[in-house]
C-alpha cells in the first residue's frame, strides 16, 4: 500500500498530465484491477457468451423450440427418445422438440429471471438497509429505534428458509414467471438490507464523516454523498453473486412447478423438471440445462469474487 502511494506521489505530476481533465476514482481503479484478474476474465467471457445467446439465441436455433417434430415424425415412442444426432445435436426432448434449440432460446428467460429478481432484491433491500443504516449511524435515539424496527423485520424474513419463503410467495401469488421473479427477489432482500446497513454503520464512524460533521454538513447529505457511496462496494459484489443464486433458485422454483404455467416456453429450470422422469434412459435431457445453469452461475460467481477482491481495500497491494 505504502509503496503504491509513494509511487503515486512521485508520479503525481506525470500521471496527472496523462489524466488531463478527470481524476481517477476508486471505481475506475477497481475496474482496472478486475481487468487484470484472469478468473474475472473467464467469468466475463462466460457472461458475454451467455448474454449473447440470450439476445440472439432464437436466431441461432436450428428449429422452433416449440415444434413437437419428434412426435409428428414418429421417432418418439414410450421408453425411447432419440439422443444426439447430426440433425439434432442434443437430441429430442420427451415431447419431440429439439433440445439444442430449446437450450438456446431458454437462455433469455433464465437471464431475465436472474436480472429482474436480483434487481428487485437489490432495490428493496438497499432501500431498507440504506434507511436503517443512515438512521442508525446518524439519527441519534430516534434513528436507532427506526433501525431496530426495520432490522427486526428483516431478521424475520431471514429466519425463514429461503426456498420455503419463495415457495410460499409463489403459492400465494399463483404460478407465473412474475411470481418466480418476485419470490426469488424477496428472498434476497434481507441479505442486501443487512449488508448495506452494516457497511453504512461501519462507515458512519469514519474520520471523513466526523470531518464533514465538523464542517456543519447536513446529516442527509452526509448519508447520501459520503456514507452511501463508501458502503456500496460489498452490495455490488453481493448483487453479482446473487445473480448466480437467483438463477439457480428460479430454476428450482420452475422445477417445483411454480414457474411459468406456459410450459412450452423453454426455460432451463423447467427443462430440468421435465427431464426428471427420463433420467434413466436419457440423462442428457437433465445434464445439458443443468450444465448451462452451472456454467452461468460460475460466470457470475467468478466475476463477483473478482469484484470483491478489486474493491476490498484490505486486499489492495
Amino acid at each position: 500500500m505504502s509503496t503504491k502511494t509513494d509511487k503515486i506521489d512521485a508520479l503525481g505530476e506525470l500521471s496527472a498530465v496523462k489524466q488531463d481533465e478527470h481524476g481517477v476514482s476508486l471505481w475506475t481503479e477497481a475496474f482496472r484491477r478486475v481487468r487484470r484478474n484472469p478468473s474475472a476474465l473467464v467469468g466475463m467471457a462466460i457472461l458475454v457468451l451467455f448474454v449473447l445467446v440470450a439476445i440472439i439465441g432464437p436466431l441461432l436455433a436450428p428449429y422452433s423450440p416449440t415444434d413437437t417434430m419428434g412426435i409428428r415424425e414418429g421417432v418418439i415412442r414410450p421408453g425411447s427418445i432419440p439422443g444426439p444426432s447430426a440433425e439434432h445435436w442434443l437430441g429430442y426432448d420427451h415431447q419431440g422438440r429439439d433440445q439444442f434449440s430449446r437450450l438456446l432460446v431458454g437462455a433469455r428467460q433464465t437471464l431475465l429471471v436472474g436480472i429482474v429478481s436480483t434487481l428487485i432484491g437489490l432495490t428493496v433491500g438497499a432501500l431498507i438497509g440504506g434507511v436503517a443504516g443512515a438512521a442508525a449511524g446518524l439519527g441519534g435515539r430516534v434513528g436507532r429505534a427506526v433501525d431496530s424496527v426495520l432490522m427486526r423485520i428483516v431478521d424475520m424474513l431471514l429466519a425463514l428458509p429461503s426456498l420455503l419463503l419463495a415457495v410460499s410467495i409463489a403459492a400465494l401469488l399463483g404460478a407465473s414467471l412474475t411470481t418466480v421473479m418476485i419470490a426469488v427477489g424477496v428472498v434476497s432482500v434481507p441479505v442486501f438490507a443487512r449488508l448495506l446497513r452494516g457497511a453504512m454503520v461501519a462507515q458512519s464512524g469514519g474520520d471523513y464523516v466526523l470531518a464533514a460533521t465538523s464542517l456543519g454538513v447536513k446529516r442527509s447529505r452526509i448519508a447520501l454523498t459520503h456514507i452511501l457511496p463508501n458502503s456500496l462496494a460489498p452490495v455490488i459484489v453481493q448483487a453479482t453473486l446473487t445473480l448466480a443464486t437467483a438463477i439457480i433458485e428460479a430454476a428450482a422454483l420452475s422445477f417445483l412447478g411454480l414457474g411459468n404455467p406456459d410450459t412450452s416456453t423453454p426455460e432451463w429450470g423447467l427443462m430440468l423438471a421435465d427431464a426428471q422422469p427420463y433420467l434413466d434412459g436419457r440423462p442428457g435431457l437433465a445434464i445439458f440445462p443443468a450444465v448451462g445453469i452451472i456454467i452461468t452461475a460460475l460466470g457470475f460467481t467468478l466475476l463477483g469474487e473478482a469484484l470483491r477482491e478489486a474493491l476490498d481495500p484490505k486486499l489492495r497491494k
Partner: protein
Amino acid sequence: MPLLDVKDLSVTFARRGQRTVRAVDGVSFSVEAGEVVGLVGESGCGKSVTSLALMGLLPKQRGVTVGGSAMFGDTDLLKTDERTMRDIRGRDVAMIFQDPLSSLNPVVPIGVQVTEVLARHRGLTGAKATAEAADLLNRVGIPDPTRRLKEYPHQLSGGMRQRALIAMAVACAPKLLIADEPTTALDVTIQAQILELLRDLVRDSGTALVMITHDLGVVAGMCDTVNVLYAGRVVESARRKPLFAEPRHPYTTGLLGSVPRLDSGKGAAARDPRFGAGRPAVAGRVRVRPALRPPCRRLCR
C-alpha cells in the same frame, strides 16, 4: 471579553462493568480573538476530547457526560442543541484533523467536498461555488486548483490533502479554528509548510486558533498562550516565552526535558532527577490519576 471562554470543562466516559473514565477534568482556558492558543500534552491527556467536546462532536450516548461551560459569544457550545450546532460548525468554528487521508472521503472528488461547505453556509452553488473553491485551494497553496478539484484524495500527496482540509475549514472564514495535531501525520518538511500556512491564514484573517499538539516545537513557533494538559487537567497556563524560560510546574519541566537533544545521550531525561529519576517513563498513556503519584519533586515539601 474573550472569543471563547472555557470554564471547568469535564468529560467522563462511563461504561457498564468498567470504571468511569474522567478524560477531561475541570479544564479552563480562554481564547482571545485572533490569538493562537496551544493545548499541549502527551497522548491521552485529554487534548482531543477537549476539542471534540467544544465542537459538540462527542458521541451522544448514554455514558458520555460533558460538564462545565464554553462560552462562544453568547452561546454555550456545550449546551447548544444539535441543530444550532450544525449551523455554528464550519461557519463560526471549524476544525482540522490529524489524519488528512482518512478525513477526506475517498470516493468523492475534492471539489465536491469543498463546495459542499460553501453551499451549506454561504449558499454558493454551481459555477460560483467551483470558482470560490478553486480560489480557496489557491489560497492554501495548492497549485493548479481547477484540476485538483476534479481529483480524488488518493491522487493528492499528504501535504496537499491537509491543505485541502484546511481550505474546507477556512472556507467560511470562521472566527475560531481548532487544529487537532494537524501536522502529526506529515513528514517534517511538509509539517513546516503546513504550520506556516496556518500561521499566515490566522494572521491574515484574524481567526483565532486553538492548536492542539504534543510537539513543543510547534508551540514555540506558533502559540501566543500555552496550556499544558496532564491527566485531563490544565497544570500550567502561561504566555509562550515565560513557559519556555521558566516553567513553573514540574510536569512542564518534564515535558520540555523530554525533547530529545543531540548532546544529552540516551535516556538522559529518564535519569534527570528534576523529573523523578527512577520512575518509569510515562509512555504514551496517563494512568488513572488517583493511582498516580504526582511526578512532583516538590511533593516532599
